[in-house]
């Protein structure tokens, strides 16, 4: 009995979807817009996240070590800094390494290489590059460094000649505020977009069912139970969701392809098309699931009004 009813409900949903062609078409169009908004927010958030992470990785503090210091002293300093809980990583660049990096960076600039050769000796200091877990923690690390007398620049026992935090302080603070702001704005926009898409989908389906309210009345008069009347509408809602999810996914491919160039100019590291293709399964599931849930829940709620 249950399976017969389920079979009839699903069949009725498909038939109704097909026969109410124009209503189905408009509902599908609106849902494409809604799902498109959800998917774009999803992509943009991911894109921003990667971009911010790359940007965060570029922030660091360099501690330039006095040329008198021995390698063992520097390594022990590195160990000390690494014990700080805020510190993610400390990289040691020896003087020779710094010189090699410098030459590589300027290999096409003969005058600088020439000048370097004329100096003869290696003028570059060894450096420790400190990366914090969060951009806002750099200030604390810098304070720690300057409070420890053997580490602070200019102290009698110090092997540190210069910490470049103060030079970049303003830039780092601004960047960390910007990152926090962008993250907050991103989540607000996501919430608003998802809210809007739920509202427009719900209202469209409500209109579609408003058109069928007399039919619901007739079905009740003939003796249809609530579930039996509601079932085909929910199936129809799911079909709206499925069809629009597939169309959304199909139109997303050329759009990310087209945006690929633009986003690469804006920020070299991220490629939307690549991101879309690499995370296709996840995006596919999010869109399909959103579509089905939006359609089914909207239909369920919209029919309820006429079943009282």
């Amino acid at each position, binding site marked *: *009995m249950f399976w017969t009813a389920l079979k*009839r409900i699903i069949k009725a949903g498909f038939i*109704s979807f097909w026969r109410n062609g124009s209503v189905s078409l408009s509902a599908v169009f609106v849902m494409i817009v809604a799902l498109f908004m959800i998917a774009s927010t999803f992509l943009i958030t991911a894109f921003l996240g990667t971009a911010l992470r790359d940007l965060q990785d570029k922030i660091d503090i360099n501690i330039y070590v006095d040329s008198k210091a021995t390698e063992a002293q520097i390594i022990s300093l590195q160990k000390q800094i690494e014990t700080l809980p805020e510190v993610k990583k400390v990289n040691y660049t020896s003087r020779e390494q710094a010189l090699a990096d410098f030459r590589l960076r300027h290999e096409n600039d003969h005058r600088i290489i020439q000048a370097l050769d004329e100096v003869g000796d290696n003028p570059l200091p060894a450096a420790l590059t400190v990366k914090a877990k969060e951009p806002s923690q750099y200030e604390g690390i810098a304070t720690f460094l300057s409070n420890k007398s053997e580490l602070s620049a200019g102290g009698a026992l110090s092997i540190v000649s210069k910490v470049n935090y103060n030079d970049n302080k303003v830039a780092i603070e601004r960047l960390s505020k910007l990152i926090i702001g962008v993250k907050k704005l991103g989540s607000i926009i996501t919430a608003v977009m998802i809210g809007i898409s739920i509202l427009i989908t719900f209202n469209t389906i409500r209109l579609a069912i408003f058109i069928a309210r007399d*039919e619901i009345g007739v*079905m*009740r*008069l*003939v*003796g*249809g139970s609530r579930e039996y009347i509601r079932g085909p509408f929910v199936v129809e809602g799911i079909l709206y969701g499925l069809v629009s999810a597939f169309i959304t996914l199909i139109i997303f491919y050329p759009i990310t392809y087209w945006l690929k160039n633009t986003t690469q100019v804006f920020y070299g590291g991220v490629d939307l098309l690549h991101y879309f293709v690499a995370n296709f399964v996840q995006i596919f599931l999010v869109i399909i699931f959103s579509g089905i849930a939006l359609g089914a829940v909207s239909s369920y709620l919209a029919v309820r009004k006429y079943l009282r």
Partner: protein
Amino acid sequence: MIYFDNVYKVYPDGTKALDGVTLSVKQGEFVSIVGHSGAGKTTLVKLILGEDHPTEGSVSFDSVNLRKIKSKDVPKLRRRIGVIFQDFRLLPNKTAYENVAFAMEVAGKTDDEIASDVPHVLELVDLTKKMWNFPRQLSGGELQRVAIARAIVNQPDLIIADEPTGNLDPINTYEIVQILKKINDMGTTVVLTTHNKGVVEALGKRVITMDHGKITRDDSTGKYAL
């Protein structure tokens, strides 16, 4: 079969639709209810269908007290009653066949029963040729015959016809009344509301006359007295 015991129905806007109605309809009877618009005929029908509840008094259908019926039991009640309306109330996106089959589906009939009964009932109302037409492709008389087929397909205990001939020409009216009479002859109770004098007099059955929510006459062999 149907009992109204001192029933009052007052709508929220203060309209008194039924004013102390007491009546009973026996199994197998053919009862016509006549009266002007606003006399309370449609309210009477709504109370029998469980679409509305009486303000006072009790309405029962066999042993079911319709005043206390739970909303989840209403569908079961309606499967025992076939309804026919002036405006047909067919499902516009279903064919004649599917409209009739729908009533069997909600009653939980098997696919085999549906496949054998629906064509049979449509043959009874002479619509075999238009079985696969949609309501928009049918005339008024044909629509009403589909509605009758839908009403009788589950072999209900009671047929309620609420102004079934209101939108039809005399020839179609005659046909519909003949079909209702045939259904009654086969043993089904029929309650018909109408203000068509010709229909009532041609039937020669029990007539209840209503005015302003009260029963003013109850004649065992029908006369239309308004």
